[in-house]
């Protein structure tokens, strides 16, 4: 990777982290549990890496197997994370 490409990635990392700090410090304590299960789902973004690993990287057996394991796990996180967060948020009602 060229140093230009790396510096852009670091820019993204730093700015996204600051944005994350700003956004999440505004989330009220009531919603902290859904926030955590929701971020479980977002951390399932590794699914993108897993898909790539199953494909072009995956010509050797071990790489392919690892990619497939990652894909199953990341899918559990994505599907389970969003579904359970929705289930929880549905219950938050004001009467």
């Amino acid at each position: 990777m060229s140093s230009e490409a790396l510096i852009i990635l670091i820019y993204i990392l730093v700015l996204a982290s600051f944005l994350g700090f700003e956004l999440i410090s505004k989330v009220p304590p009531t919603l902290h549990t859904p926030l955590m299960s929701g971020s479980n789902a977002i951390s399932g973004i590794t699914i993108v890496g897993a898909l790539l690993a199953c494909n072009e990287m995956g010509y050797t057996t071990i790489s392919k197997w690892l990619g497939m394991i990652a894909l199953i796990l990341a899918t559990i996180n994505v599907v389970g994370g969003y579904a359970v967060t929705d289930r929880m948020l549905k219950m938050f009602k004001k009467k």
Partner: protein
Amino acid sequence: MSILIQVAYLISSILFVLGIKKLGKTKSAREGNVYSAVGMLIAIAATLYTVNILSFVEIFICILIGGAIGLYVSKKVEMTKIPEMVALFNGFGGLASFAVALSDYFFKTQAVNTYPDSVNSISIIVSVLIGGVTFTGSMIAFLKLDGKVSGSPITFKGQHLLNLILLIAFGVAGTLTFMNPGDPTFMIALIVISLLLGILTVIPIGGADMPVVISLLNSYSGMAACATGFILNNNVLIVAGSLVGASGIILTQIMCKAMNRSLTNVLLGGFGQAVSGPAADGPQIVVKEIGVEETAMLFDSASSVIVVPGYGMAVAQAQHVIRELMEQCEKRNIEFKFAIHPVAGRMPGHMNVLLAEANISYDKLIEMESINDEFPNTDLVLIVGANDVVNPAARNNPQSPIYGMPILNADKARTVIVCKRSMGKGYAGVENELFGYPNCLMLFGDAKQTITKVVSEMKEM
């Protein structure tokens, strides 16, 4: 990579950000979750577009298996078990990043024989470390929460030294991998060390410190995804990973502050073990017991009630019967509120979810800072399964291990009823001096059973 896919990744990143922004308000939170899910769908679709058609069958099967498991867990999990589920999912996230990093490593070194460049090697090593620690650490946290491993801290002599040695060993093996990327021996050493470190760093941490640990591991799972983004030169992984990383860190800070402890202090573990000596010498606390009927009568004659729920409420599954108690009180025009301590339960916001499940309106749940001034004007406080968060020693006993921790001033109410199984100590291993206060009455027994009896007494009144 084509520009179209980059644009798709940009759109998903925007949706993740908007989703979290909307999650900040109770009204729009559900919509925010949908935004975030759509963002994920776009990222997946864009990635699938680049995938070789030959690998579609495997991909489809994996997604089907993962999706079915995820959906099943999300439908079946009980709300009291959400901390366990989040711990498990943190671990899955860590393991997924770990596996992607290794997949990339083995592909480059074994299949195409092009050594990973230096940025790549470092990213792989970091990803293996964070991913591995997140995975085994989360599994231990899960087992502790689920009671399969004792929730009390497991400590042994030289524990911290061992961790330090392992960390140094990781540094050495990492440097060697960096210098000889083609040799998998060092990579295998890195794998073993990172998995060991995850186990060793979580076992000394006690059950009630789990809110901190889960938040931290949540953050790690995001950072692991981030590191994977550096391996694959992929922006959306970095954006999403950083958002999760930041979220976990903020929650960790909030939890530490609410316990008046530093993160280092929590991570070094062993809290609540060594304090039994001096505390046991203190004056014996004499408590006053109260029965179910008298409790019902006290509720009947009160005009304002605050309930302080704790982890014990979750264990006893008492949230539904507490709603019935609330209905009985509201029928009598008794003001009824809940006081929520930030570390009540086993994860941030745990009590809020349980009470929401019991169909209790969220505007009745008041945060510690807002409600603490109301206790002196409250007739009756019912403490269900909470202990350290209402111990006045945190305010007035500098010798106490929990001294300085912000607490709910429940002791200032006119009457306090503590619903508790037995006279066991709180997690911190300290006597709760509140129990000996003249305005404090103990209602012994299983929270669900005793409160059910109180409610049926009230119905007959």
